[in-house]
């Protein structure tokens, strides 16, 4: 356990040193603040709290941005160190390979958590302040922050899988980009095509299963229709009532999506010869 923490600590320091943390915090804060204050203008004064509106708009964009940032952190993690030659020395130390992977994962997750906490947290506080400290929607906002970190964890893990499979760093970068495109755009397009062509043949249960099979859609379900007030703002209240999915299913789906690539990475890395 100690070795994992030492390795995580080093990843965090690396992140601070090469401005990864700063850049991520700034992009999250910028996104959150601009959406919170500019994005609420067309809504005008609604019954819904400012935070509730922010969850709807912010989670719709996080679903694109977070996977991209997480994959950028993840794709380099193993192939980069193997290519630069630093992995050789590290593995001659009293650390096992799974400790190396888990240590990196913990460090990268911490970087994303700090960025979300500061970036989204500061925007949330500003919103609450501007709404005369009305805390309406605070729970949904916190849930969104937490699930955003979880989404980040899923794509860091997927990034590692790309990193352990690729022979070269540049190839890993290409695969990561392709994976991002598939996960945030192509999968949903495919799903849309299925829905249109299948018509009534596709039951509600199968449809929900197909949504949960994608970590990004699980994230959307959790944040856009998981909370009733947010669903109203997002215009998905009907869907929410029909689907009847709690938060357990999407959270579990995301946890599975985090665990599977991580386990696959550990297995492949264990077998890798240096």
């Amino acid at each position, binding site marked *: 356990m100690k070795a994992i923490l030492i390795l995580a600590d080093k990843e965090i320091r*690396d992140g601070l040193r090469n401005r990864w943390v700063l850049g991520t915090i700034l992009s999250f804060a910028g996104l959150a603040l601009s959406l919170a204050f500019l994005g609420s203008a067309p809504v005008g004064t609604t019954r819904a709290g400012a935070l509730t509106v922010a969850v709807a708009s912010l989670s719709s964009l996080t679903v694109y941005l977070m996977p991209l940032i997480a994959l950028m952190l993840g794709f380099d993690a193993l192939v980069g160190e193997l290519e630069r030659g630093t992995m050789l*020395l590290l593995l001659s*130390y009293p650390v096992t390979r799974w400790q190396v992977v888990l240590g990196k994962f913990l460090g990268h997750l911490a970087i994303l958590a700090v960025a979300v906490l500061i970036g989204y947290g500061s925007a949330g506080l500003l919103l609450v302040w501007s709404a005369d400290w009305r805390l309406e929607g605070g729970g949904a906002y916190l849930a969104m922050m937490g699930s955003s970190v979880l989404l980040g964890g899923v794509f860091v893990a997927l990034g590692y899988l790309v990193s352990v499979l690729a022979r070269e760093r540049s190839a890993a970068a290409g695969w990561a980009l392709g994976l991002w495109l598939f996960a945030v755009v192509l999968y949903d397009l495919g799903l849309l095509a299925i829905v249109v062509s299948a018509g009534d043949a596709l039951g509600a249960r199968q449809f929900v299963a197909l949504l949960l099979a994608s970590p990004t859609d699980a994230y959307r379900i959790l944040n856009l229709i998981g909370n009733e007030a947010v669903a109203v703002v997002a215009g998905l209240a009907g869907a929410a009532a029909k689907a009847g999915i709690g938060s357990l299913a999407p959270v579990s789906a995301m946890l599975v999506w985090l665990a599977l690539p991580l386990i696959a990475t550990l297995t492949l890395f264990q077998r890798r010869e240096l």
Partner: protein
Amino acid sequence: MSVQPAIALEGVCKRYGASEVVHDVHLRLAAGESLALLGHNGAGKTTLIKLMLGLTRPSAGSVRICGRQPRERGFSALRARIGYLPENVMFHDTMTGRELLTFYARLKGQPRSAVPALLEQVGLGAAMDRRVRAYSKGMRQRLGLAQALLGDPLLLLLDEPTTGLDPLLKRQFYALVAERQKQGASVLLSSHALSEIEARTDRIAIMRSGRLVACGTLAELRRAAGCPTRIRVRIAAAARDAVLAAADGFGEVHLLGPDAVEFACRNGTKMDLLRRVSALGSIVEDIEIVPPTLEDVYNRFSEAAEPQ
């Protein structure tokens, strides 16, 4: 400390696909002993060291380090007592020397307080708070040695440790390693030239195309190599034939010009030849004796024809 040999390789083979980079290597390094592993690039030295560290698995044979197999449970703990310096060591460039060595010290369970003294010892005291990106090749190599020396190692595995170092740094480098050996560490260092190592290690092993072709002390290798001692004789004009006649039957003769001849003497014929030549009197103007260099001895083993 155990009485187990630091390194015991038995019949070790390593294949990558169809090519065999290590073939049937038997090698033993007693505790406290030092060994130089020599060979050209691609002879299999680095693979052999990786096999010792468990970074790669042998295709056949057994590897034991201090009595333990690199893949068995608990070997990880033993790694804290093994110092490894990879060929062309690479570091995370954005960290300072002190940060890096602290990271490695913590992984080996060593106190942070040991770091500055160790950096001072390898001559990086003044540069320890500069980023490694700004380090020269020699400084990186010294940082590499510092991390290998962390935690009172039982075994040092140094892969081409002095390539790119100037002669002064080389001497300092070997002095630091010798000091650790005096404290009981076993040392294996690889190199691509015997002249680099000279007599700095107890024994020398030479690899060629994945095979161990020689192993012994420098004196043993010299004897086994049977390289000729060259004797160059400078002669007064027009007296060459007299010298050639006197030295008839002493092996190879090279005519270097009308007034110079070189003889290649093997197996203790040197003194005989010298006596005969000097008996010729004043027609011999000069005699130069060139014993086989370390390079000659090394080339004898590392460049001999492939076994059929």
